[in-house]
């Protein structure tokens, strides 16, 4: 930087990032991104050096999901860029606004199979909302503004900006462009509010089906008021958890779908009207689609036109901003009989926590962690049985406090996502609930946690198995346990200690309460290894291609 508006591509990048309020980024350097890292050296942006680029992408996702802001990650060309891909796919599936910056070989070398050259622009087509390759440094400023606008506009998602090395080095004059917004080109058809209202007021058994869109649209208050005003019984998807809560809503039945509560699934199968808000009738939610909510008419609120009628016909689609639209249907309903039935089901089918023997019951542990953790604790999970137990037995008061890989179901998400969440919310407690398989997928990020002394707590539910796959092998593959044994795991306490992180192993019920208290009271990072029976299963379970009311239950 010589004079005020004189930049290199690299220094301009950080200037624009700061213009967008980005003061923290996650990344990993390498040859083709060295000019950017050189510019970082003089920048006020704080860089969190991860230990694998996948960790950078997930940390950016955790940062974005815990706050609603755009998360940013950086990687070099070739292997650095390909290591980001899983994270981009995860962000696309869950509609998370992140901007990924990749270094690229110099424009003159592009297309020559140069060292560490990969066509990441081509790869990005299937795993980003949009992508750019900046071939002229004079385009960089505007491209970066567009990247932020696109990540946040409408249905949010990941954007990749690939920047060749010579473009990073080139001198450029800052144009001081206005931060752009993307014009909403899709002309929304007028919502049929009258039709929706008539469906709603004539329904005898309506259900409100809340998805991840509610948190992302910041429509939590609107949806809570709507549920309260109408008195409509409600259910949530995995990603919608936190939008509603049993504490202030007697007719809220929890999660629906494959591992949903019995009451939620039965109620949805019986309902005559389903009001979907920011939800997309995902196959993990619907079970056998042709038998899902067979008697229900559908009101579908969404920001994305392409979700309407994609998997289920909507009798009354209401497209656009949920925050503005949900209150349009507010009304009072006379559905007392249905409400009474819901309350009854909720009582009859409540969770059972009695568990014989001295061994630890993971659902009880997670329930207790949830009850004892301070207000506003942000929980991340990995993928598997522990993830479903967390969804079932922990309570969340806001979707920004439950970060889980929903659409992609990516093992390895939990620890780096917790890093991103902790960086973005330094004053809140962050707890990563993980399994022994998933933990090992990004265990190197314990190094990042230690380096920055991030007080992330890890609850490791250790069954010495790839538990969820083992459960399916037992139930649907005649117990042929193919490659799901992890009984030769490392000593996790010793491993955490090797990173300089305090850790403890517990194996009996009697130890649970004290261990949770110790973890929560500990000032810095902490790994609590909770050993459970290898054969514990997640219940209920709706088998694949089965109607949701034909769930399997614990015997």
């Amino acid at each position, binding site marked *: 930087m010589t004079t005020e508006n004189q930049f290199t591509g690299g220094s301009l990048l950080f200037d624009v990032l700061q213009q967008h309020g980005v003061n923290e980024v996650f990344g990993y350097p390498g040859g083709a991104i060295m000019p950017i890292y050189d510019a970082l050296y003089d920048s006020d942006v704080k860089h969190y050096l991860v230990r694998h680029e996948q960790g950078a992408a997930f940390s950016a996702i955790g940062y974005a999901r815990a706050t609603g802001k755009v998360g940013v990650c950086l990687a070099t060309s070739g292997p650095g860029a390909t290591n980001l891909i899983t994270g981009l796919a995860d962000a696309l599936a869950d509609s998370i606004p992140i901007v990924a910056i990749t270094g690229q070989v110099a424009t003159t070398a592009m297309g020559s199979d140069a060292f560490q050259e990969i066509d990441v*622009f*081509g790869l990005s*087509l*299937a795993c980003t*909302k*949009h992508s*750019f*390759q900046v071939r002229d440094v004079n385009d960089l400023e505007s491209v970066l503004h567009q990247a932020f606008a*696109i990540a946040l506009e409408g249905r949010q998602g990941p954007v990749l900006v690939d920047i060749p090395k010579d473009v990073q080095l080139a001198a450029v004059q800052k144009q001081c462009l206005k931060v752009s917004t*993307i014009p909403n*080109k*899709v002309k929304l058809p007028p919502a049929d509010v009258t039709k929706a209202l008539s469906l709603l007021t004539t329904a005898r058994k309506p259900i409100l089906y809340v998805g991840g869109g509610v948190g992302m649209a910041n429509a939590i208050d609107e949806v809570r008021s709507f549920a309260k005003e109408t008195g409509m019984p409600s259910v949530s998807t995995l990603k919608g958890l936190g939008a509603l809560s049993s504490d202030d809503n007697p007719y809220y039945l929890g999660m629906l779908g494959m591992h949903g509560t019995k009451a939620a699934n039965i109620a949805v199968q019986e309902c005559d009207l389903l009001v979907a808000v920011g939800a997309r009738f995902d196959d993990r939610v619907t079970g056998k689609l042709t038998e899902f909510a067979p008697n229900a008419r559908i009101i579908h609120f969404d920001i*994305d*036109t*392409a979700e*309407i*009628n*994609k998997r289920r016909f909507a009798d009354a689609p209401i497209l656009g901003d949920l925050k503005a639209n949900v209150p349009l249907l507010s009304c009072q309903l006379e559905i007392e009989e249905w409400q009474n039935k819901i309350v009854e089901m909720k009582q009859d089918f409540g969770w059972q926590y009695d568990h014989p023997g001295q061994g630890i019951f993971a659902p009880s542990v997670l329930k207790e962690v949830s009850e004892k953790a301070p207000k506003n604790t942000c929980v991340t999970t990995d993928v598997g049985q522990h993830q479903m137990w967390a969804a079932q037995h922990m309570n969340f008061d806001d979707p920004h406090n439950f970060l889980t890989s929903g659409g992609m179901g990516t093992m390895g998400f939990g620890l780096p996502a917790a890093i991103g969440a902790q960086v973005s919310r330094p004053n809140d407690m962050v707890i990563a609930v993980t399994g022994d398989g998933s933990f090992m997928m990004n265990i190197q990020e314990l190094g990042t946690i230690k380096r920055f002394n991030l007080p992330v707590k890890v609850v490791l539910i250790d069954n010495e198995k790839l538990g969820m796959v083992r459960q399916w092998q037992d139930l649907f593959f005649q117990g042929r346990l193919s490659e799901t044994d992890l009984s030769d795991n490392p000593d996790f306490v010793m491993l955490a200690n090797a990173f300089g992180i305090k850790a403890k192993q517990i194996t009996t019920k009697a130890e649970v309460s004290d261990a949770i208290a110790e973890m929560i009271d500990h000032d810095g990072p902490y790994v609590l290894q909770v050993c459970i029976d290898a054969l514990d299963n997640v219940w209920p379970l709706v088998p694949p291609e089965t109607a949701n009311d034909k769930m399997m239950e614990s015997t």
Partner: protein
Amino acid sequence: MNQYQLIIMADDKQVVLERILQVTRYRGFLINGISAEVNTGTKVATIIMQVSSERPIELLVDQVNKLIDIKSVSVDNSVAFENSATLLKLSTQN
């Protein structure tokens, strides 16, 4: 399999054609023919694409429309499919 002709108007930006092809394949449509022209003055591309699929065409229209550089997508119902000599004929499984 049903056949359709789509008329897509797009800003002539980087890899816009590749994006349309990727979405078309991924969403389960075969491309039977395609032509693309750019108005160099307005930098707006007109892409005419004949596709076939068992799936409803609205699925593809909505998904192509979501691409950032697309201005509009419409289904051209006037076309007779034997008469598509103006389009590049594709006979591969693309």
